């Protein structure tokens, strides 16, 4: 796959890459995810085209490289689309002709000789007239494509065209777009190199070798401007990212890669480019991952044609117990199988980069599964982390000119195994002499239930051995002894390990304070764990009845037990709101009846008045005093009405405001009315 058209350029570059490749880290190959991404990115419109000719060419070319069947179904329409443009070469721009020719070349559409003659004439005319780099690029590219499709095209004035393009180059290896432009561009450099390569292959005579040498020198300078990331990724980008023709690093790098490879393909002699930069560029294109736009996808895929083989491990964890085989897959970056090759394990490095094994072992090739495998048992490596160094060598010499093996490959692997636990003992001793009173053997393969008792003058001893499958002492990451009191107070002790065994002695005399003077039953648990240990365990050992002295006054209190986070942060109990229950009301009829009943005394009052013979004879008969008397009564009525309104809807302030006015009025008319009555009665008396 990597060499659909493996020109000498590819070979040259790949040889360079292989020769100078540093230890390459694994890069994910192009996968089916890429294919589906490409299929999604290049979506033809309703008429089967991809917009303009350029997009169509990019789609066709991407599908072709990725081996997608889809592009074949496009053939008819895309060919037609291209043919339309080619039918009238004089009216089309060089750019359109260039893309149309390339589409036909890529798809292998049937060629009409007459049409191409017109196109060739038009493109040659463009080359003569123009001084723009893009015009040169399009017309030379178009001619080259026509030549590749089997037409005889010769550029007679190749030398002068070469000079015209070279005149646009800058001292730092960049190119200008045309003679008037002040800006130099890396992208343009890639285009120019591709155009120069085209001219060299179209030329009827050998191009001046000294000129070629100058261009090679330009390429070296261009690679001096390459940019890099820390992880060894290299890419090209414009010096001034605010330039008007800014394309972004993907397009720029793709342009340079295309230009340099096509130039290297047509000239003889070695290009002096550091291999690490070529690998770095490959990494850059692979590192994009799944491209986001159709243009990026095209540039990525087309530039990835020059990527070395990739070595990868399906699994990086191996178990000594199940006698796993070390399996290695070698694929091209496009995920297809590699050619016949040998994989050697050259070195095994320990976690501290110490060489464990430097015997050269060849991996067996399993043709069915396309993996190289090796038994790990003969390697005599123990559990732990290791770095394996592989070397790939191609079996057939001619493949060495197509594939690059990427030099040494280092893979980190992890070996696990069963750890043997034995000689486990637990006991209580009385004094420093260590005379064990009650030593019990423990079987740590299952939970045990030893029952021990001790006071604060005694000591608890626990010891055991851990050995790896190869018989060495194993030191796990975690070895803990846990004592858990009835009141859930826990104490963790790290069990120290020596070269021979793990042993812990708990002197309770020194621990009484740590134990908060808590006597009683302690549950014992032993935890041994390591990532490389397949039988990591947490065993309940039994319990210990501890008799500690009474706590003195100032003894520290046991810490409060951690609150269950659920009860602390979990949902609170629902708040049920208690409202005052409405008072029991009497039946409506009863209340209405009593309302009527309150009227009874009033009726009685009226009847009483009638029987007493009350009359209104004393009411003033003169119009003036009568008016005042009426107003007086009306005023009282108004005040009472105001009170009713106050009860029903008014507030106190409004009421008092009205009451103020009414009161003044009432006092005035009341005084007039009553003083009239008073004077009248006085007159009566005196008369």
């Amino acid at each position: 796959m990597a060499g659909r058209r493996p020109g000498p350029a590819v070979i040259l570059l790949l040889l360079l890459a292989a020769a100078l490749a540093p230890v390459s880290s694994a890069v994910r190959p192009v996968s089916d995810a890429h294919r589906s991404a490409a299929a999604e990115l290049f979506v033809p419109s309703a008429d089967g085209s991809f917009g303009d000719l350029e997009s169509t060419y990019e789609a066709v070319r991407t599908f072709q490289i990725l081996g997608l069947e889809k592009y074949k179904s496009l053939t008819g329409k895309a060919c037609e689309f291209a043919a339309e443009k080619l039918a009238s070469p004089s009216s089309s721009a060089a750019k359109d002709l260039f893309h149309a020719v390339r589409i036909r070349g890529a798809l292998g559409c049937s060629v009409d000789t007459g049409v191409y003659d017109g196109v060739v004439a038009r493109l040659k005319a463009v080359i003569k007239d123009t001084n723009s780099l893009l015009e040169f690029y399009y017309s030379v590219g178009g001619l080259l494509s026509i030549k590749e499709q089997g037409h005889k095209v010769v550029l007679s004035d190749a030398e002068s065209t070469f000079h015209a393009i070279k005149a646009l180059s800058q001292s730092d290896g960049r190119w200008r777009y045309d003679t008037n432009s002040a800006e130099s561009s890396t992208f343009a450099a890639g285009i120019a190199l591709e155009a120069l390569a085209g001219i060299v292959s179209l030329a009827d005579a050998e191009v001046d070798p000294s000129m070629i040498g100058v261009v090679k020198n330009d390429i070296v300078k261009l690679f001096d401007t390459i940019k890099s990331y820390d992880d060894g990724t290299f890419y090209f980008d414009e010096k001034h990212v605010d330039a008007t023709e800014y394309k972004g690093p993907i397009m720029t790098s793709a342009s340079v890669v295309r230009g340099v490879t096509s130039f290297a393909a047509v000239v003889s002699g070695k290009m002096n480019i550091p291999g690490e930069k070529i690998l770095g560029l490959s990494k850059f294109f692979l590192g994009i991952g799944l491209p986001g736009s159709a243009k990026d996808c095209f540039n990525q895929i087309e530039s990835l044609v020059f990527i070395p083989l990739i070595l990868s491990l399906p699994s990086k964890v191996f178990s000594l117990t199940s006698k796993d085989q070390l399996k290695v897959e070698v694929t091209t970056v496009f995920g297809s199988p590699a050619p016949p090759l040998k994989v050697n394990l050259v070195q095994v490095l320990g976690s501290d980069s110490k060489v464990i094994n430097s015997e050269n072992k060849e991996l067996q090739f399993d043709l069915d599964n396309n993996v190289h495998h090796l038994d790990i048992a003969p390697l005599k490596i123990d559990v732990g982390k290791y770095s394996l160094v592989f070397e790939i060598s191609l079996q057939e010499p001619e493949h060495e000119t197509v594939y690059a093996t990427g030099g040494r490959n280092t893979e980190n692997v992890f070996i696990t195994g069963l750890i043997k636990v034995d000689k486990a003992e637990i006991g209580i001793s009385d004094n420093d002499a260590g005379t064990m009173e009650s030593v019990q053997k423990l079987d740590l393969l299952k939970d045990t239930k030893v029952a021990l008792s001790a006071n604060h003058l005694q000591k608890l001893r626990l010891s055991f051995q851990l050995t790896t499958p190869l018989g060495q002492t194993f030191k796990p990451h975690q070895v803990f002894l846990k004592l858990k009191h009835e009141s859930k107070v826990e104490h963790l002790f790290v069990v120290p390990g020596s070269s021979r065994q793990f042993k812990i002695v708990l002197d309770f005399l020194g621990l009484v304070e740590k134990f908060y003077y808590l006597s009683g039953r302690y549950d014992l648990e032993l935890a041994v764990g390591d990532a490389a240990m397949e039988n990591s365990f947490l065993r309940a050992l039994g319990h210990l009845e501890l008799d500690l002295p009474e706590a003195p006054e100032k003894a520290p209190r046991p810490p409060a037990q951690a609150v269950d986070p659920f009860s602390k942060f979990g949902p609170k109990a629902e708040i049920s709101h208690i409202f005052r229950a409405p008072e029991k009301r009497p039946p409506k009829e009863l209340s209405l009846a009593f309302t009527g009943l309150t009227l009874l005394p009033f009726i009685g009052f009226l009847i009483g008045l009638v029987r007493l013979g009350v009359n209104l004879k004393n009411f003033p008969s003169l119009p003036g005093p009568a008016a005042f008397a009426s107003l007086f009564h009306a005023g009282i009525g108004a005040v009472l009405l105001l009170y009713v309104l106050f009860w029903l809807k008014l507030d106190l302030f409004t009421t008092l405001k009205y009451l103020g006015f009414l009161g003044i009025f009432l006092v005035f008319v009341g005084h007039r009315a009553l003083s009239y009555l008073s004077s009248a009665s006085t007159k009566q008396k005196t008369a």
Partner: protein
Amino acid sequence: MPRGSSDARLLIQSLSNAYAATPTNLKIIDLYVVFAVATALVQVAYMGLVGSFPFNSFLSGVLSCIGTAVLAVCLRIQVNKDNKEFKDLPPERAFADFILCNLVLHLVIMNFLG
């Protein structure tokens, strides 16, 4: 107990005879007092029957009646010609006081009624 009942009848008779001599305006006031107290009693009976909720309404109702009855009694004292100490006070002035006090009392009552 025929004797006792006749005594009581005699007593009531003499009382009503004596009362008949009371001036009409005082009788009107008496009637008003009786009316007010009777209304208060009706409300108290209602309270006894269904409970004191809402208590402020009950209080304002009863106190309105009792208050106005007390004011009426005061009026009666001032208007009565036999009371020498109020001889200089004209009954119109006493009535004006009665009206004013009633208005103030009922403003408070209305505020308390709820």
